[in-house]
Each structure stands twice: as structure tokens, then as C-alpha cells.
């Protein structure tokens, strides 16, 4: 009887949970897969005339590509692997030469992905795009 009651209570709790307006649970699970373009960055504001252009591509298989152009010249292409801790929403990775990056706190609002260093002041936002333009992928060092 006790076991049965506990089961019922648990079911109720579960059902209740499904309908509860818990603000935390309104935030969708962070899914970083896809292509992203840097849309705003603290540094971008700070550097004024310098052009900073960054594209991130996170694949579902766990690999990433970064195309970046800081200042003049062509894009530099970086590759490697990444992991996303979905519970803590922490994104980290390893460049193909073994160098680690992150972890960044990842937050997704609509089509905007924010990656911030925990406790840091730098805020970088990325806009979801269909694919990295050919004018970028075809213009690398």
C-alpha cells in the first residue's frame, strides 16, 4: 500500500511539474549545433575601427570550425572538438593542436547564442545563420 501511494504521489508530482510555470524550465535546452555569426561583442565596441568577424560552426558529431578575421586580411580557420555540459550549460573545446578553450556559459534566446566567461565582463553574442558564406570559407589563409 505504501509503495503504491508513493507511486501515485510521484506521478502526481510529475504531472504537476509538467504544468508548473517554473521560470527556469522556460529556458530551452541549449543546442549550439549549427552555424553562428558574431553579432556583438564587448571587444567589438571597444576596438572601434578594427573589424572583428567570427563564424562558429558546431556540428552534431562534436566537431567545430571557427572562421575569424580580426583586423585586415583573410579569415583564419580553426578546427577541433567541443563538448556541451547541458546541465550546467557550459561549452568547452579543444583546438586541433590540443589547446583547450572555455568553458563558456552558453545561453540561447531565440536565435541568439551568448557565450560568456564565468564571472567575466566580456559578452559575445552570435546570430544563428544557415551556413557560413562562401565568401568567408573561400577566403582563408
Amino acid at each position, binding site marked *: 500500500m505504501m509503495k503504491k501511494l508513493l507511486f501515485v504521489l510521484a506521478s502526481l508530482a510529475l504531472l504537476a511539474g509538467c504544468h508548473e510555470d517554473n521560470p527556469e524550465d522556460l529556458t530551452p535546452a541549449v543546442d549550439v549545433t549549427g552555424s553562428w555569426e558574431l553579432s556583438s561583442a564587448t571587444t567589438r565596441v*571597444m576596438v572601434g575601427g578594427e573589424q572583428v568577424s567570427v563564424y562558429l560552426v558546431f556540428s552534431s558529431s562534436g566537431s567545430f570550425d571557427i572562421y575569424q578575421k580580426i583586423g585586415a586580411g583573410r579569415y583564419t580557420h580553426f578546427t577541433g572538438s567541443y563538448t556541451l555540459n547541458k546541465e550546467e550549460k557550459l561549452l568547452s573545446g579543444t583546438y586541433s593542436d590540443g589547446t583547450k578553450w572555455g568553458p563558456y556559459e552558453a545561453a540561447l534566446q531565440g536565435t541568439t547564442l551568448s557565450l560568456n566567461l564565468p564571472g567575466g565582463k566580456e559578452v559575445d553574442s552570435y546570430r544563428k545563420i544557415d551556413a557560413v558564406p562562401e565568401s568567408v570559407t573561400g577566403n582563408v589563409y
Partner: protein
Amino acid sequence: MAASLLAALVSCRQEPLPSVVDVPGSARTKVVNLGDEWETSSFLVKFATRPSDAELEDLRFEGVLSMEPLFKSFPGKEDLEREFGLDRWFVVNLEEGAELDGAVSLVAELAQVAVVEYNVIATKASDCKVYPAAEPAAEPATRASASGKFNDPMLPNQWHYYNQGNKSFSAYVARGADVNVNDVWSNLICGDPDIIVAVVDEGVKYDHPDLAENMWVNKGEIPGNGVDDDKNGYVDDVYGYNFNANGPISWNVGYYDGAGYWQGDSGHGTHCAGTIAAVNNNNKGVSGIAGGSGAQDGCKIMSCQIFSGNSGGSTRTVSNAIKYAADMGASIISCSFGYTSAFASDDAYKRAAGSAEIDAVHYFEATRNNPVLDGNIAIFAAGNENHNYAHYPGAFYDIISVSAFGPDFLPTYFTNYGPGCNISAPGGEYYHGVGEKSMVLSTLPKELYKEDYGYMQGTSMACPHVSGVVALALSYAKQLKKTFSRDEFKRMILASVSDIDQRIGAVPSGAKPLNGHENLSMAPYYHQMGTGAIDAWRLMMHIEGLPTLTAQTGRQQWIDLSPAFGTASVSLTYLKVEVPSAAVSSMGLQKVTPPTNTDKYPAVMDEGGYAYVQFGRLYVQPTKIGSGKITITAVGGGDHVGGGSNPPGGMELTQSVSLIAREADGGNGTGGWL
């Protein structure tokens, strides 16, 4: 005046002055450019102010056959000619039997004379040993060569453009011992017909099957009619001019001596021209660095002939050839010659008041012949005597001088190195066991060697490699509609290098391995081959724009300066670091902890203590997100800047780098954004 000069000349004839050092008193400082060999029937004079015709007539003392302007004035260039004093240079031709040194001594004492210059004979910067090469059967026209973009059948043997480490070139071959031009051809540019390179050398065989299409043509001249149609002072100068013989360009003048050896033209100019712009992708022979893609888009070659047969190029000949290049539209002069004498300084070479040749070079560099630069670029060979200094005129501090390496990416046994040498390029080197394949392969006159192609070695061959790369760079900058100052462009050239010193320092035995040069110690060459090996791809990237460097806030760190100075940045001598207050403020730069090991590895500190450079690294400590420009000055070619009364040295290279400070560590040196 005339009578006293005559008396002195006569007495000098009786007892010749042994050398210019016997010129008395202050007049001695007016006499410049004493070489190993000079013309005895004439010398050059530069007046303090341009003399009137009457004044010139008064100076025509007995013993002087004639006095005539050294340079032909070019319509529309009179102001520039005056600016560089070209209008004040005259040739003094002596009567037969007149004694040269006495005349020089007397003329130097005249108050109105600023400079007296011997008419020195230049030497070609190659041993002129040639190994002809038969052209292999052409590949099908639609098939590109296995080693590159073009179908030229001999391109796979031109390791000097794209060296993939094939041991047939040397048992100690080094992948990348080349000018790194392959990707430039494939992705960026192959040339531009508006960019003209003057080959100041032996005559270029302008109807060579692999050069004809890329020869510059003077459209104002009707070939062979014996008339100066364009009224530039030169008759029938269609592809250039023979300044040595004052007539049509030639490339096979000479004779066989009693022992049956050829004495005369060597094909030197034709070989250099092929390296710069042999026609590419024509299914024929060799490729040229700026020879186009096969769509008639190569850079053009102008032949400014200063050597002919056994006759060397005198100062008079060379100076006029260089001025012609400036006046007729060349953007680059490729000068594979020099004077073997050592000079203690630039002033010793020109004795402060100028020399005809340097005045002509500076006139050339001040002339604007392309939409990219506000001037032109002169490039010289460093010389082949294995001297630890560059030969003049290339050693002049603001003129680019080129040393030579082989397919082993080590200095060649003959190359000059050290002060005055600004940059290195492939010059080829005959190796025992490999033979001529390790030399530079290019075009030759068939009349001399029964083949259209062949191998040569020398800094003579290294020089046109840099000329070709610079021609490509001007083509690319033109395509991108970018403009630069001439001096800015020179700095970019010297900063667009790959490191050669690591290879020199890593030679296991300390001497050149294998190949018959085992006793040649490499130690003297360390840090002495200019800024490094010219790298065409890097130069194109510099033209596109310097990448910005990134630093992380909150820690002292070093940042690799190779994006700004090439991979030779670790080897350069740095003179100055300047951090403006705006950069200090924006990034919250803290004073850096100064280095302790400065005796062995000199460091250069910013005046405010906010940054220093050591080992080719910039040390900073930003505390907040921001950015700023930092200016760094280094020496390109040697450990000090030449010029004036300084010992021969390098060129000052000043680069500004943008620095962005972020919280992200940029991959801890990887440079990635995350």
C-alpha cells in the same frame, strides 16, 4: 685656368698618380667610387650648380676631348631630374694619352665641382657558368604540371619556385627552400602587363620563344628604321636599349679565344629575365614568377643592356640605363651586378655629395610608374665573393640587396652575407653528386648554348627571384586597388620572409652538409642573410592587410610578432617599441616585469615600461578589454641601420600592429577567437 690644367695634366702623364688617395686636401673628399677597374678615357663630374654653356666651355681645358651631359633629359621630368641633381652630371672625355688620375685630381680642386667619379666597371653577380638543358617533350596542352598550376614542362625542375623536398635536387634538400609562389599562382595573381621590370644586365633575347610575349614594347618606336621616333634620345629602342654599345640590344656578342673558349655574352640577362617573367602555361619550357597565367597577363620585361660581349657596364652606362628604366615606365629594376670593392660606409661610397649611379637609383625610386606606389623599387644582387658584406650599390642602406640560398635552404658557398644584405632568395648551387639540377633553371639564348634553357647560379639568380615576387605583389596590390608609399612597401617586402636561421643553426656538423662543400662553416651566416627568405604568399597577405594580434587581460604574456615581421622575427635586431598613451589607457596596460637575460638576448623596452620586445615576441600586460596600436622598429639586414657614415648596415623596418585585449585567452596562443 686652361693653361695651368694642361701643365698639370702633362706633368701627371710623366709621373702618374698611383691612386685617388693622393688627391690633395679637401678635394679628396670630392672623389668617389674607386673600384677595382674603371675606364681610363673618361670620368664623371657633378657640379655644385648647373653650369652655363659658357662656364662649361671655360672648363674645356687641353687634354679634355669633350664634356657632355651624362643624362639625357626626358620631357616632363625636368623637375625630378633637378631634384636629384641629374642635370649637374657631366662626362669628361679625355684625349688619347691624357692621364686619368691627374685630370681627376685637378678637376676635383675646382670650386664649382661637387663630385668627381671614376667611371667604374661593374661585374655580373654570377660566375656565368652555364649548364644547358634540353626541353623535354611538352605535355598535352590541357594538362597542368604535376608540380603546380602551369603546364610548362620544365616547371617541375624549378625547385626555386616550389620545393617539395625532392632529393634529386640535393640529398640535404629542404622542403620550402623556395619563394613560395605556387599558392599565389593558384589563388591570387600571376602577373599584370602594366607592371614592367627592367633587367639591367646583358641584353635580353627578346625573341626567345618563352619570353617574347612578355617583352615590353615601346609603342612609340618603329623597329629598325634608324630613327628616334619617340624622340627620347634613343634610336630603335623597341624592347629597351643597349647602353653599352649605344645601339640595338644584343645577347650573343663575343669570340672564341685561342684555346677555343667563348669570350663574351653568357646569357646572364636572358636567364634573369626568364626567372622574372618567362611566359607561363604556354606548354613550353620554364615558368617565370610573374609570367602570367597563359592569358597574356604576365608582367613585362624591359631590357636595359649594360654588358655586351666582354665589355663591362661602366658607371656612365649603368646610370643611363637606370634613368631610361625610370623614364620609360619600369616599376622595378632588377640589377644583378655590383662592384667588388669594399666601402666603409655609404658616405665612403658616395663621399656624401652623391654618385651618378646612386643619384640615378634614387631618381628611379622617386619616379611613379604604377598606380600602387608613390615610387619604384630597385633590387640588387649582394655579390658572389663570399664576403661578409654586400657589394655596392646594393649595400646602400635604403636599397634592397639579395643574398642566395640553395635547395638545402642554406647559404650558398659563394653568396655575400652580413651588413647590407637585406633579404635572401634562391640562387642555386652546383652540388657534387647532383650537379646542375640544384642550380636555377631559366631561359637562355639558343645561339650560345644550342638550347633555349639552362642552369646558372649566383646572387644574380637570387635577385630576379625577388624582382619577380615584387612584380607579382605590385600586380596583386593593383588588382585590389591598394596603394602604399614606396618605403612602406619596401618594409613589407623585408617583413615577408620565412626564417632561414633555424635551418642554419640546426646544421648537425656546423658545416654545409654533403654536396662537396663540407668545409664551409655555417656559423658566420647565422642572422646574416637579411631578414630571411622572401616568401611570395606572405607578401600578398601583407598587401591584404596585417592581422591584428590578440592578448588576454589579467596576465603578463608574450605575443608572437611573426604576423608582422615574418618568421624571421625571432632573429631580427629590434630598435624601438612605442606604446602610445591611448593604448595604455584603452587596455589598462600595466608596466611589464623587465627581462633579466638581456645581455645575451637584448630586449627593447618601451619608454614608459608598458611593453618590450625580445626573441621576436611582444611582452605586455593588459588589465582590461580594449585595443590600441603599438609601433615596433627593427633592422632589416644586419644588426644596425646603415647610411651616412655608419658601417654598411640594414634598412629600418617600422611596423604598427593592432593589439586587442580580451578576457578570452585566444586559445592560449593558438590565436583562435574562443
